[in-house]
């Protein structure tokens, strides 16, 4: 048996910024992570969408250029929030080109590659306007029902000051775009030729997907590779989502796989200080489920404030308490996995876990109860204009789970005028609030019927 791509998923945040907000002639939207989303939460969304993710063995690669933590492992956070096995090696990869590196590595070693990124630029810049936020995840391993197999993998490093960011900066520095285009065009052509030689076929690929900061260059480079099915995937990706940094090749690949037919070939190139490239052969028809509708239009001021580029007036109150590291560690099953307990004697469910059963008084007779993927609904709710939220009013809700259990939670991506008691919700791992620039995470409930697919 050889390692093949067994499953894939994509996550595009619900909110979007319309480019016509800047100039009437602009079109399309860029995807925008919510105020309570970041690289970790989007990666968790993507990995949790992978079928069989929890059975993944070996390795978890997280590729991003905007990790919420240095020193501390971001892949480790994704690992615990996805309930992956205790012996999984968690590997953090950095930089724009890390996305394709993660795909190359996972295709060789097996495991999950999750690519997640948030792109910011100076207000009004093309980096801001053409950027996008999102994540994609890929499960590599052995199996009889693989989605695709990797035919070839090449790397062509070039030391190039085309785009760079220094620690602490919110912006990339970008050299004159024609310079990078001129240098990189032959590098991409050469990588493609190397993959063609490996594949042993002279036919052009079915898909040629180029991930590059400059969208026009990416299209030109893809065109030159004469893909049989044209450039629709890349064009719609750039138009509706935008360049997603390290996650960009992952989203391109996921959308192509979703519409591809068995036997198609996909050439995927990631750029930035050189190029890495993969050639894949599709083994299974795509399911055609990744339909990205219009995003919920976000005002530009809200966008700037959510990204921390515009300081909003804070609620006038003392700082929130910081997280206690021992308490967070003790309760990590609950905090990161939304795992409560079920009484072994009487079956009563407790969220969070309780050592003493509230129903039959049994002590320390419990098993884990995973509430994170369960069907749930709103038992009652209220708007909350007192709690400090970047998307005021916050909505507090009592969530009841099918199978037992109830938690008071915050709703996200919800409009109080459009929800009702009894509405179904799903649970989503979110960034709650920061203390001393340190993010805190927990779960929120999201109305199930109101999200863009």
């Amino acid at each position: 048996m050889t390692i093949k791509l067994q499953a894939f998923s994509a996550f595009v945040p619900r909110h979007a910024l319309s480019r016509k907000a800047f100039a009437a002639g602009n079109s399309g939207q860029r995807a925008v992570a919510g105020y309570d989303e970041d690289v970790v939460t989007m990666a968790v969304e993507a990995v949790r969408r992978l079928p069989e993710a929890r059975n993944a063995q070996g390795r978890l690669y997280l590729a991003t250029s905007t990790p919420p933590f240095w020193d501390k492992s971001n892949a480790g956070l994704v690992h615990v929030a996805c309930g992956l096995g205790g012996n999984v090696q968690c590997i953090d990869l950095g930089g724009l080109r890390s996305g394709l590196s993660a795909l190359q590595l996972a295709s060789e070693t097996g495991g999950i590659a999750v690519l997640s990124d948030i792109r910011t630029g100076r207000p009004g810049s093309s980096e801001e306007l053409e950027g996008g936020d999102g994540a994609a995840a890929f499960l590599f391993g052995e199996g009889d029902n693989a989605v695709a197999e990797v035919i070839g993998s090449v790397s062509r490093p070039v030391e190039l000051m085309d785009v760079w960011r220094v620690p602490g900066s919110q912006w990339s520095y970008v050299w004159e775009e024609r310079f990078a285009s001129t240098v990189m065009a032959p590098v991409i052509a050469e990588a493609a030729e190397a993959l063609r030689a490996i594949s042993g076929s002279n036919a052009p690929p079915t898909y040629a997907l180029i991930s590059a900061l400059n969208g026009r260059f990416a299209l030109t480079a893809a065109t030159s590779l004469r893909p049989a099915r044209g450039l629709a995937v890349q064009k719609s990706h750039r138009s509706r989502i935008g360049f997603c940094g390290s996650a960009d090749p992952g989203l391109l690949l996921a959308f192509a796989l979703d519409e591809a037919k068995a036997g198609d070939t996909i050439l995927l190139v990631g750029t930035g200080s050189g190029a890495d490239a993969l050639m894949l052969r599709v083994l299974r028809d795509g399911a055609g489920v990744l339909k990205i509708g219009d995003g919920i239009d976000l005002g530009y001021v809200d966008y700037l404030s959510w990204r921390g580029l515009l300081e909003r007036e804070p609620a006038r109150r003392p700082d929130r308490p910081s997280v206690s590291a021992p308490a967070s560690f003790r309760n990590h099953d609950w905090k990161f996995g939304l795992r409560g307990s079920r009484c072994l004697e009487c079956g009563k469910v407790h969220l969070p876990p309780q050592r003493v059963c509230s129903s039959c008084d049994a002590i320390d007779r419990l098993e884990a109860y995973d509430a994170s993927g369960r069907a749930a609904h709103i038992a009652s709710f209220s708007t909350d204009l007192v709690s400090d939220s970047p998307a005021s009013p916050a909505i507090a809700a009592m969530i009841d789970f099918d199978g037992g259990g109830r938690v008071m939670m915050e709703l996200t991506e919800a409009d109080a005028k459009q929800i009702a008691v009894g509405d179904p919700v799903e649970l989503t791992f979110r960034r709650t609030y920061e203390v001393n620039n340190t993010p805190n995470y927990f779960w929120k409930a999201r109305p199930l019927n109101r999200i863009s697919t």
Partner: protein
Amino acid sequence: MSKSLKDRIAVIGMGCTRFGERWDRSAEDLMIDAASDAIASVPGLRKEDIEAYWVATLASGHSGLMLSRALKVDRPVTRVENFCASGSEAFRNAAFAVAAGVYDVAMAVGVEKLKDSGYSGLTLNAPPGDNTSAEISNPAAYAMLPDVYTETFGVDKGDMRDALTHIAWKNHSNGALNPDRAQYAAPVSKERIDSAPRVAGNLSVFDCSGVADGGAAAIIVRAEDAKRYTDKPMYLKGMSLHAGRCDGVATAGRHHVSFPEVVTCAADAYAQAGITNPRTEISMAEVHDCFTPTELLLMEDLGFSKRGEAWRDVLDGAFDLKGRLPVNPDGGLKSFGHPVGASGLRMMFELWLQFRGEAGARQLPDPRIGLAHNMGGLPGEFVSFIGLFGKELG
């Protein structure tokens, strides 16, 4: 002076967790562990038999719900807080309710989860204020005591340091005989204590109580009912609480060679119990040794030593495990650890074990009357509790 509850209240069951850095235990866990131990110590007693609860903590929870949620009880539950004397306060209020006949069986629970704060010391959420108070650590406030004592009584500073070292050595030696529950259950040599780096003034970490997590619990009934539950109950002989007017920190010329709140409190408790000579009538004492100089001064305030002579009694071994009046045989705050809300009940737990002959390697020969002294605050402004307990009625 308060009225006496002598021989009207009995403890019929107790529990106490291991104290220390319990990273794997929450305040809820510690309450469950201590309360379960206490219930299990009374054959046939069920959780449903307990009619009311008082729970003590300085900062590890709020309201009676902190206990009712953890233990899953539908009962009256009251949270009390009185600084480091909180655990005794839970006992005191539960005893009042039982003595009044409102409840037949009540439980006092004390708990503190200090090691979640990220600070190796006590944390306190002070009410919002003008922030004019100097930022002075607890060790620094107590480190002022030794020099005042030596100057007032003309004691050599070296002798004083030797006495403080002896107290630390004694309490660590006692704690070493308490390996199942004490935070620091290893003996420490006097040389190591003397050579340790100072944290404030002339005090090192060996002069400070252990910063710990822990829980303790006591089940209380009226004395006449006690034998229905156990052959070996522990009887309350006297109980006093005193909060001073805090003028010790505001009165020029006041010397802290004595804690007046403790003196008042002791006189009250002794009168209730009919004790006229504590030196000879008390078999053992658990005292609030938050810092070694505190224990030294308490020996005089509690009447165990004459004024100005406690240092000499300490060095003579009067309060050692085999001395004339063993003090802190379980290791005290120093070695057993000081999870604030639990400490007062932990002191009573040692009396309970000693009276029942269950104190293992540190068992004293037939103690009859024991004292538990628990206090909170700083020199000059204390709330002080004293409980006197006996093995038998009469």
